[in-house]
């Protein structure tokens, strides 16, 4: 049960003179639902971007996926190894329909090699798979519509469906609930829990604490690039350091 | 001695590039348009300046008048040509701009003739002897003007309300708008300033060669693009330095490797090398 899927060791990231992540380390256990929280600018998104591989790491940072060192391999290879990530600001392919957005992701096996892709035309099985996924996130009725002009709620769901289409083993979610209203957020969170229950490991960043506490099994708290706490949600929220660093600011933010 | 003179020539050429490129980078920083027709406004400046000078005989009158007039044309270009296609992919504005530039060159040829115009009594042709180096008054004035103009601009940008508004709009248009800055006004202003600068550059160049031709915008049309990319697109300070660097590289290059590569090739070889090492240009925006 306690098999470690992802191991993040001594992550250091710098932008210009600022240290965005400072020696952050943690493990992700297969099948769990882990959330990363922290005030704005704590380095949460940077952490996810480091795992997926779009941010440059400084030594001695190391990332292992299922015991394999993936620190130096490219993004698309990581994706093919079972990592996937959604973005906080949704960026669908604007030139495509909702369905096509998922189909292109579902076809990741076909697009692996450009040359064989040139001679590959059949999209039937990918379309079928994409329709199933759209069904899972409740978008099957807008499948044929162009993405431009769709409301944020649809786009957020599309983002999840599209990411699922690459068959990930570990899903990184960057604020999947941001911008959604109360009802939508709850619905979305439920969808994510369902996905988790189907066997997918999830690492989520989220500001909506109520939903985080409802769905997460474990929390990690970042502040100013440092990991300041981790453990089960109740214990973490009682931690004085967390209250000092995170809750205080967050309350001010919430009030504003 | 020769090195010093070449360095000086590089700085002269560089300050000419700077006046053109700073205007272009102002436009780019705000609207993300590769504004090729800027070079058409440069040539227009040359024509207007020369015509006013030949009528009145006064450069003091010709320069600001031409700058103001071309500045207004620049605003019109923005309103009529770019504003409606801003939300399109970048190549749309680029090709529209190229089309506009070709049409402008042809209009100049049709109106003013293909042979080019010359000054009746070209002003600023005297030269000063600085330790054996002859520098023409026009060259000195151009360097002086570029320093003064760009200095004044940067002072205004730092210290006046509208200057701050400009910079804020470049950095974050939505944020600026939420502080009550009228982004549209800022765009007009940038086009006005940029085009006026281009016009002044056109006048200086025509003074150096005593020739205003329909095709005089040809070289700046692409060279200025290279310079603003080298300077880190939209970065005024970077553009300034890139202009001088390209000027100096060209001045030395034409003499020492001129038999291997021509002036343009030298400049672009330099650009490519820099971009391969620093893909964001010499000075990144952030």
């Amino acid at each position: 049960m306690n098999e470690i899927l992802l191991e993040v060791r001594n992550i250091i990231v710098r932008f210009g003179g600022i240290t965005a992540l400072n020696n952050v380390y943690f493990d992700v256990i297969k099948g769990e639902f882990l959330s990363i929280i922290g005030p704005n600018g704590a380095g949460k998104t940077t952490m996810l971007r480091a795992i997926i591989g779009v941010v440059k790491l400084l030594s001695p940072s190391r990332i292992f996926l299922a015991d394999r060192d993936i620190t130096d391999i490219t993004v698309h290879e990581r994706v093919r190894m079972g990592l996937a990530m959604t973005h906080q600001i949704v960026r669908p392919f604007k030139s495509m329909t909702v369905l096509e957005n998922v189909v292109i992701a579902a076809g990741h096996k076909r697009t692996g090699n450009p040359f064989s892709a040139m001679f590959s035309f059949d999209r039937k099985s990918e379309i079928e798979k994409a329709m199933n996924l759209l069904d899972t996130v409740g978008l099957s009725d807008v499948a044929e519509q162009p993405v431009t002009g769709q409301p944020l709620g649809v786009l957020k769901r599309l983002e999840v469906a599209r990411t699922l289409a690459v068959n990930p083993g570990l899903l990184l979610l960057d604020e999947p609930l941001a911008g959604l209203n109360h009802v939508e957020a709850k619905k979305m969170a439920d969808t994510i829990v369902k996905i988790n229950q189907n066997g997918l490991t999830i690492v989520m960043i989220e500001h909506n604490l109520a939903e985080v506490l409802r769905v997460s099994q474990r929390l990690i708290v970042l502040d100013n690039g440092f990991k300041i706490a981790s453990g089960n949600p109740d214990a973490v929220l009682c931690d004085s350091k967390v209250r000092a660093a995170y809750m205080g600011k967050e309350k001010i933010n919430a009030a504003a | 001695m020769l090195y010093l003179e070449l360095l000086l020539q590089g700085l002269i050429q560089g300050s000419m590039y700077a006046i053109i490129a700073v205007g272009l980078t102002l436009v780019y920083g705000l609207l993300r348009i590769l504004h090729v027709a800027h070079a058409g406004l440069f040539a227009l400046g040359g024509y207007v300046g020369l015509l006013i000078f030949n009528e009145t005989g006064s450069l003091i009158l010709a320069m600001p008048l031409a700058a103001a007039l071309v500045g207004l044309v620049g605003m019109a270009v923005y309103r009529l040509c770019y504003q409606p296609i801003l939300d399109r992919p970048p190549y749309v504005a680029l090709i529209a701009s190229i089309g506009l530039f070709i049409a402008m060159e042809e209009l100049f040829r049709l109106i003013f003739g293909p042979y080019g115009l010359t000054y009746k009594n070209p002003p600023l042709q005297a030269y000063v002897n600085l330790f054996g180096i002859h520098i023409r008054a026009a060259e000195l004035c151009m360097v002086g003007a570029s320093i003064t103009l760009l200095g004044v601009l940067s002072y205004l940008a730092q210290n006046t309300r509208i200057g701050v508004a400009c910079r804020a709009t470049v950095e974050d248009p939505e944020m600026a708008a939420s502080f009550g800055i009228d982004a549209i006004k800022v765009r007009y202003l940038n086009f006005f300033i940029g085009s006026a600068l281009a016009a002044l550059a056109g006048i200086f160049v025509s003074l150096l060669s005593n020739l205003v031709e329909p095709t005089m915008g040809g070289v700046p049309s692409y060279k200025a693009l290279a310079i603003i990319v080298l300077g880190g697109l939209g970065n005024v300070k970077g553009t300034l330095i890139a202009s001088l660097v390209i000027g100096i590289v060209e001045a030395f290059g034409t003499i020492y490797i001129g038999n291997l590569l021509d002036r343009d090739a030298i400049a672009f070889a330099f650009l490519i090398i820099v971009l391969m090492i620093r893909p964001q240009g010499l000075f990144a925006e952030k």
Partner: protein
Amino acid sequence: MGIYEISLGTIVCINIIFAMSLNMITGFCGQISLGHAAFYGVGAYCAGMLAKAGFPMYAALFAGMIFAGMTGLVVGLSSLRVREDFLAITTMGVNFLFLGIVRQQDFLGGELGVSSIPSHGMGKIGFLVFVMILACLVIAWSHMIKRSWMGFAFDAVADDEDIAQVLGIDVGRYKLVAFAIGTALAGLAGGLYAYFARFIVPDDFGFITSITVLSMVAVGGIGSIAGVVIGTLLLTLMPEMFRFISDYKLLIYGLLLFGVMRFAPEGLAGLIKSFVGFICKKRAAL
């Protein structure tokens, strides 16, 4: 058919191959190139030199294609480093660099170019048919790529590189493939041009040629195969149609470029599409 019609037909077909080759890079894969004439030139010079050295036409054309494709691959590597406007200017620089190098190479004829390229030996009509068949093959191939998973992945890369990568698409490799195919086809077009003109000079492959071919693609409708063919036909034949007002020919050309981008930014293909859509809607309403 007189020799005039034959020569026009041949030029149109060569330009279609050339425009299709750019469409592969810019239209399908979304990588703006302002220096495509360089690869056209590589193909032309390679084929021309080999033809003069006594190689048969098919070998010379093939070699030109391979050589251009390899050069394109190297330039494509820069697209992994720099993006969008930076890439546009880098490719433009490649064009100037190519020209600068060719101008100074005596074995390539330098400024005098390569003349007396041997005849293709198939007669004017034979050559026209040959070029026409090649153009049809290139169109068919483009069509096939567009429909395949490769074309689908190109769409994703063109739309948003970062996202494509996160969805497991090897963006770098796709870009390189697009550059390799596109530049090889440009090399083929160049080789055909060398055999057609039987005389080439560096200026045939300058920045203006790059702009012209980009205009063909953009005016037709970037990414649309039928659009690019129409755009190429229009812009190639336009100078011929307007010969009788030759003084205004370039002016009209410039205004057309500008006008299409300003009022129909998706090119003629987009215009036709929205027109058809409009008719259909009207019908549906009746």
